[in-house]
């Protein structure tokens, strides 16, 4: 399942890149992209575990860029 999320206060392009790399490493995530330009994130992950994976994504992103909020 592929889903898109808006990101708030994503201020640094390097962080977007780091977030993308970190999300891709999460188990169950097939593909992910974080666009600094559109301030959007798209995640392709397992259907059944999507919510659990999303919780993990939020945690990972908080680590990289504490200011950035994922609007779910």
């Amino acid at each position, binding site marked *: 399942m592929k889903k898109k999320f808006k990101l708030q206060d994503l201020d640094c*392009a390097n962080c977007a890149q780091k977030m993308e790399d970190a999300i891709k490493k999460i188990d169950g995530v097939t593909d992910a992209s974080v666009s600094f*330009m*559109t301030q959007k994130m798209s995640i392709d992950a397992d259907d059944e575990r999507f919510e659990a994976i999303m919780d993990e994504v939020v945690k990972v992103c908080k*680590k990289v860029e504490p200011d950035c909020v994922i609007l779910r």
Partner: protein
Amino acid sequence: MSPKQKKTLYRIITAGIIYGIILVWSHMDSYADLIEGRWFEPVVFLVPFLLAGYDIVLKAIKNICHGQVFDENFLMLVAGIGAYGIQEYSEAVAVILFYQVGELFQSYAVGKSRKSIADMMDICPEYANIESEDGSTEEVDPDDVEIGSTIVIKPGERVPIDCVILTGDSYLDTSALTGESVPRRAAAGDEIYSGSVNGNGLLRCRTTKAYEDSTVSKILELVENASSRKSKHENFIHRFAKYYTPIVTIGAVLLAIVPSLITGDWAEWIRRACTFLVISCPCALVISVPMGFFSGIGAASSIGVLVKGSNHLEAVAGVKTVCFDKTGTLTKGEFKVNGIYPFGCSEQELLKLAAVAEKNSTHPVAKAICDAADTSCSESREMTYAFNVESRDGKGSKEGKEVSENEKISISEYTEIPGQGVLVNVGGETVLAGNDKLMNAYGIEFKPVSELGTVVYVAKNGKYQGAIVISDSIKAESIDALVNLKSTGVNKCVLLTGDKKNQAEAVVDELSKDIKKKHPGFVGKLIDEIESELYPQDKVACVEKYIGELNGNGKVAFAGDGINDSPVLTRADIGIAMGSLGSDAAIEAADVVIMDDNPAKISAVMKIASKTLRIVKENIVFALSVKFLVLILGALGFASMWAAVFADVGVAILAILNSMRALKVD
């Protein structure tokens, strides 16, 4: 400016003022007295330092707790503390202050460009006026409109969902979708696409798609996804950024320790190491390169060309061979009757006869004949009507009777002879309509017509009646398109077609006919090679041949109308689908989608791609050389921390401003 940015701005200004006061004060006598106490100076400078940079400190602490060692905030903080440690208080504050100013500028510039790109793609309808059964209308979210609902589009409103007009007519501005500035006329029965803007007529329409499947949503999705298909340049920057920060940081540590142990001059080498830390963020590149591509894609979409990814935009710039499909790409793809040669009867009679014979056939040629007969019939009907009004005698009714008799014509026998034509029996008369083979097969003497196109010979009761020529005509823009391609760096243009060789050659001749008059300076051929009588799989083989010919030194593009061309669109380095407004299959298969059917846009998008690539390369070279220069000067002790701040945020801002240029279409 956003509220957050404003807050930062005020903070920086306040810190700057305090810093200025302290600097002025430091030249006075009273200050010199106080400095005797060693604790005084660091504490005084700590005020503007913390005011300007407390968020950096907080973030650095947070991130270091998360194990993010190579975080830019942390490295900035270390640089600041380092400067403090070697008693360069004033410089420490200045670095933090200017770093913050730079960051603010940077976020402002990014926000601005993001907004201008968003405005360019602002084709999203905000609401739809849905009409209920009692005729009243209500504004709703386009997402909530079901297929088959009736919606009302008022003058000046954006078409929210793909729909068919029920009543009303208007001119539609499709410039947001196709880049075409001439409004299109639309009347009842026409399909209209979401994203276009209604002119001055009121339209009542029935929706044919849900909002999420409508043209506008498809386009937005495509453009948004485009930035996730990364170009080679972006991947390079991505890999570079991963290693750059750690390497520079390690370099800084070594620079601080190793020479100091030898020379014993700790303060000097720590100062030099601090310049390293300040330059350690690869931000200029990480922001400006994707932004350049994003702007390029935005610029292309503003002329009605969708590029499905940064990687495709990059590839478009390197196109050396362009293969064109003939029908619908260089030609209009509309078969029309272009010549009527009657033999012993009137033009209209011949056309009518042929139309009766071809009425039941679905062949495009048959359709062209019937369309031509319909227009000529309706013209004659109008003439009859005018005649009626004028004379008011019995003749008019007689004519009218004839027309109705015509419509009742019964076809008792209908045989389609594959590859030849049709044989019909109309009211006891045998009519033949088809090519020369058909005429020969029935032993009919006829006068061959040499004009190019599809020739249909007609015979009645074994007697030749005349011939009708049906042909496709070239698009007016095709010549310019080919000339421009040649001047944009394309070496070879090839025509690929399923048609016969002489037909393909005729099109090329037609294209080259007026070339001297229109483009006196043009030298060479418009179309270098012709490949005819191809089946779809042959087209793939042809494209592969050209890819092999270039051997990696350039890309091969294929431009077609998207129908039946999916395999070759996919196989070519760049598949360009044309006239794709509303065609999902073509949008799916192609890499570049031209919304209207103007082939001249191929060279336009190539120009945008080259410009984008040039800007991206400029940024990479500029940012890298300034950084390396300052790194070397810093290590040698010639660059101050100020220079380092410029190499970090200053370069980033300049690179961002440069990227913005990609948004403009020349």
